[in-house]
């Protein structure tokens, strides 16, 4: 890509730029900037075919017809992860969260069906696990994150679904197996432990939703009275937004859900149904259980964690998260690298809703960078969590980096349990997700 940035634009280029800007995705940059970027035959490589990667692929394929776009990811299946809690609690069938990447990716892009193993940002090359070298001018990191079940001694993901072990995060099969374990447990009741690690989490509301819905399933089965549900948080809170944290704790107090703070799941003995929790003071408490919901610690994927792109200091260094500016989502040291989705080392949002609002920002800032201009689009950290309170009711919580509640519509009360929020969760968010993936919103 060696464009002449001062070259005049043809009428066709202007027309193309106007059409692209006119689409809802590009109100964040000027037509001149887009037209300038469209002159480049930039090589854009996208790592990861999750929501962020596919959304960017569709947006960039439409906005930059002259660019060469390459997707690097071996995964053929696409999973609608926001639906995992619905599968894991018996509300949805597992088939409702499974699709194919091929049906979602745009035509005209190159798809390298291998996994990125190494990134050299100095020479601008990605090397895959099959040894393929993929050079780039601009890189979009959308690898998602890694579930670190191995960090819990005794934990075996193959046990999810039996011996009272559940975990909503371990893919569609894990969610489905979690429902099997929950369905068995609700028949008899007993001691349930719901865990929360101290690391940044994908959909930090999921452990809470699982707790609310477990209690609801026990109530429906008539076994809540003889059960004891305890939420074991490795932190001093159960949710990072103070108002929501207080509200959830109040509801659990009324509903009989006990909470223990600063209890990190340190070990599990699946055969004996015993879990060991560690405190910051070094104490260890063993708890018996009939049902345990394991939320694994989460960290960056190995390819990012071991690369020069990871944070080197600060709160995101330990997990090896991608070092991006929280506003522009551009890498702080490598200006031709952008991040989207769970991999970003930014506060809070690791949800599909974050992708929804950040994809246009990444697209606009990447286009500005390609055009040789400084990125100006800004992301406020928007994320959303439809907090299911019980089957049939939810709260639609939206907030930003700073934990401020930011409802999209003024009449929505984020603290109000509601049928509307429930209907959005079970019927409307998946269509919205697909619109995001196709790059239309």
């Amino acid at each position, binding site marked *: 890509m060696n464009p002449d940035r001062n070259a005049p634009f043809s009428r066709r280029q202007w027309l193309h730029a106007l059409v692209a800007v006119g689409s809802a995705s590009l109100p964040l940059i000027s037509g001149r900037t887009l037209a300038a970027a469209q002159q480049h035959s930039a090589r854009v490589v996208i790592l990861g075919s999750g929501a962020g990667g596919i959304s960017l692929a569709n947006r960039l394929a439409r906005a930059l017809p002259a660019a060469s776009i390459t997707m690097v990811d071996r995964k053929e299946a696409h999973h609608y992860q926001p639906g995992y809690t619905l599968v894991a609690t018996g509300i949805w069938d597992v088939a409702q969260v499974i699709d194919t990447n091929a049906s979602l990716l745009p035509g005209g892009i190159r798809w390298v069906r291998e996994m990125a193993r190494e990134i050299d940002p100095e020479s601008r090359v990605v090397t895959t696990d099959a040894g393929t070298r993929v050079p780039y001018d601009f890189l979009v990191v959308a690898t998602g994150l890694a579930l670190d079940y191995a960090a819990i001694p005794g934990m075996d993901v193959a046990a999810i679904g039996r011996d009272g072990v559940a975990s909503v995060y371990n893919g569609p099969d894990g969610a489905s197996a979690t429902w099997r374990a929950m369905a068995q447990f609700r028949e008899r009741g007993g001691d349930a432990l719901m865990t929360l690690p101290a690391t940044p989490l994908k959909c930090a509301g999921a452990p809470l939703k699982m707790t609310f819905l477990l209690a609801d399933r026990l109530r429906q089965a008539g076994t809540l009275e003889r059960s004891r549900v305890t939420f074991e948080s490795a932190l001093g809170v159960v949710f990072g937004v103070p108002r929501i944290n207080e509200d959830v704790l109040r509801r659990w107090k009324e509903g009989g859900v006990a909470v223990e703070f600063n209890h990190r799941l340190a070990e599990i003995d699946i055969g004996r149904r015993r879990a060991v929790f560690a405190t910051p003071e070094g104490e260890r408490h063993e708890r018996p259980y009939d049902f345990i919901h394991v939320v694994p610690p989460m960290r960056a994927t190995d390819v990012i964690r071991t690369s020069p792109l990871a944070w080197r200091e600060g709160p995101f260094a330990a997990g090896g998260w991608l070092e991006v500016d929280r506003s522009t989502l551009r890498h702080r040291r490598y200006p031709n690298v952008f991040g989207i989705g769970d991999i970003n080392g930014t506060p809070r949002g690791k949800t599909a809703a974050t992708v929804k609002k950040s994809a246009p920002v990444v697209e606009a800032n990447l286009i500005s960078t390609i055009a040789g201009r400084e990125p100006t689009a800004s992301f406020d950290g928007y994320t959303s969590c439809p907090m299911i309170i019980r*089957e049939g*009711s939810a709260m639609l919580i939206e907030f930003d980096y700073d934990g401020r509640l930011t409802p999209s519509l003024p009449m929505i009360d984020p603290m109000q349990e*509601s*049928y509307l929020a429930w209907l959005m969760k079970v019927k*409307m968010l998946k269509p919205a997700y697909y*619109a995001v993936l196709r790059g239309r919103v």
Partner: protein
Amino acid sequence: MYEIWLMLNIVWELVLLHRWAVAAVLLGLALLWAAARGRSGRRTGPTFALVAAVVFPLAIVGLPMLFGSSVTEARYGPDWLLVIGSAAGAAMLAGLFAVPVARLLRTDRNAGARPHPPLSGGAAPRA
């Protein structure tokens, strides 16, 4: 503006997701109205109103149940707006189905008693 665009996209994706059901409903309506074309339309309004009035309260209760919830979970303004709006939509749809069906049934019942009205449309000839 963004939220309106998002909502339009959600509706579009829902139509795509349920395209066969949507197509069946539209085709059914089109066929019924085509079949009833030219039949007496004097009682269209009362038929529509009667069916809609019956379906509306049923939909108020039934639609939330269809979606795994209950009308008792409607707690504030936006909930009630959704409940009433969706029930009104269901009532209108039922009315749109009922009108041509009623016309066809009435005509069939009267077929042996008096001749069909002219196919060109309009009211039956006055006595």
